[in-house]
């Protein structure tokens, strides 16, 4: 891949990242941060690639440690985000009840 292509991809990704979260509501700040945090756990893929081609002990040790840390980041991140959002699910219902109540006024 040419460095021009990489630069273009980089620039477009920045725009996507900006735009996609620009409408987030305050209540979702924490889950969004946590979800984004889980996504960068994808460094796991990089860690596996490096471990996969590591030939001496030092490299292997570093890479395997990276695999361990990245897995914790990724798996833990998605699970904890899901748990947060599970708690949020009560809210829309409540909001709806509220609306209904108002409508019946």
């Amino acid at each position: 891949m040419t460095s021009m292509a990489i630069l273009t991809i980089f620039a477009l990704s920045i725009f996507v990242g900006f735009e996609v979260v620009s409408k987030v509501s305050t209540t979702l700040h924490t889950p969004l941060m946590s979800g984004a945090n889980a996504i960068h756990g994808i460094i796991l893929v990089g860690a596996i690639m490096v471990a996969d081609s590591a030939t001496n002990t030092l490299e292997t040790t570093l890479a395997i440690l990276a695999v361990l840390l990245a897995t914790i980041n990724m798996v833990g991140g998605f699970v904890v985000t899901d748990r947060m959002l599970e708690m949020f699910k009560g809210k829309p219902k409540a909001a709806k009840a509220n609306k209904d109540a108002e409508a019946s006024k």
Partner: protein
Amino acid sequence: MNKNIYELLGLVVALSFILALKGLSAPKTARRGNLIGAAGATLATVVVFFAPLGEGKSHHNTILILAAIAIGVLVGVPAARKIQMTQMPQLVALFNGVGGGAAALVATAEYLNLGTGASTAEVVATVFTVIVGCTSFSGSVITFLKLQELMTTRPVVFPGGRFVIAATLAGVLGTGGWTISSGANTPLLVMGGLALLFGVLFVLPVGGADVPIVISLLNAFTGLTVAASGYVLQSTLLIVAGTLVGASGTILTRKMAEAMGRSLFGTLFGAFTAKPQVATGEQEARSVKSGSPDDVAILLNYAQRVVIVPGFGLAVAQAQHTVRELADMLAAKGIDVAYGIHPVAGRMPGHMNVLLAEANVPYEQLVEMDEVNPTFPQTDVVLVVGANDVVNPAAKTTPGCPIYGMPILDVSEAGNVIFLKRSMRPGFAGIENELLYDAKTTLLFGDAKDSLTKVVNALKAL
């Protein structure tokens, strides 16, 4: 696996992350968004084991890798599952830190692997990843310690601190330049060590209220390190995913700072500008008015309007159900009851809404700060349950204190203020609350749940 298919799957995963972030920014789709992201990440992890290799290369260490993943899952999942809601923010901080550490390790290992074959651009990317990854790692550990209250939550500032920080930063950049020009291993190692130190020094002066902002910022930075690693490893997936997190994290950080009424600049450069703290409050034993549950019950019984201000202590005491019981009793007596919700009450944005929704508090009784503030002059009694910083007038009156500038709930405008807390200890930001000494304040000491139960019983007896 065919190279085209392999790369195509990488693109699919990258797109799944876009959809995940998009989903996460709207309440209805948030949970699905997170699951899409998890599915994408799982796919990527499986696929990478079948990555096509260059001529004459073979897969190494597969067993070791699988073992490391297994251990990671065994550590990560229970931690994420078992953690109490009150401690979630520090867990997120920790996860972020290990991610940054992983990126730094990956970059280091690849640097060793490439040896002298690395191009300048690759070395620059490596240096960037190691610096930011290490900073993010040690910085996140400090935020964890602060949030877990294993160390003081107040800004830690020592005389001349800013010079130490500037010197460390200069050292980091110097060794970085040295690494780039020499391509040797020692400077990289020294640089990593200095970056770890820098992370610690960077976060120490941050006050409690700014901690979530710093976590978000470190999160964005970690995203960028992933993108840089992607450049070195020639993985489009890592480039896209890392950049996405970097960009969205930056926006999110700004939005969080706005929501808390904090200046992002002040938070970021707090390390360089913070001065040793003025001791707030004279620490002399001043008299406070403490009351019995019966006193509180009587005050409440003859009120026309009561506002309940829940805070972090309510979450700790798990008193949300008892608070609801009390509120229902008051409402049954014809008293107008509302909950005043501060946006940063608790330990994460939206914390109070969640806890009260869990206790089935009717949604219309939850009133946001901007709406409840104008009603305090018409309020007879404010019941502050385990909150402190969010009602602390120092945010308005004491320039230089860690929460200065944060909007607060103006409970002092009400007729009476009752605090339910266990002691005279300050809140998260570590600053005295003058309101505790105010003439219209009554303190009811004890665990919030116990105190509330007693008040409920006293009310029944009336």
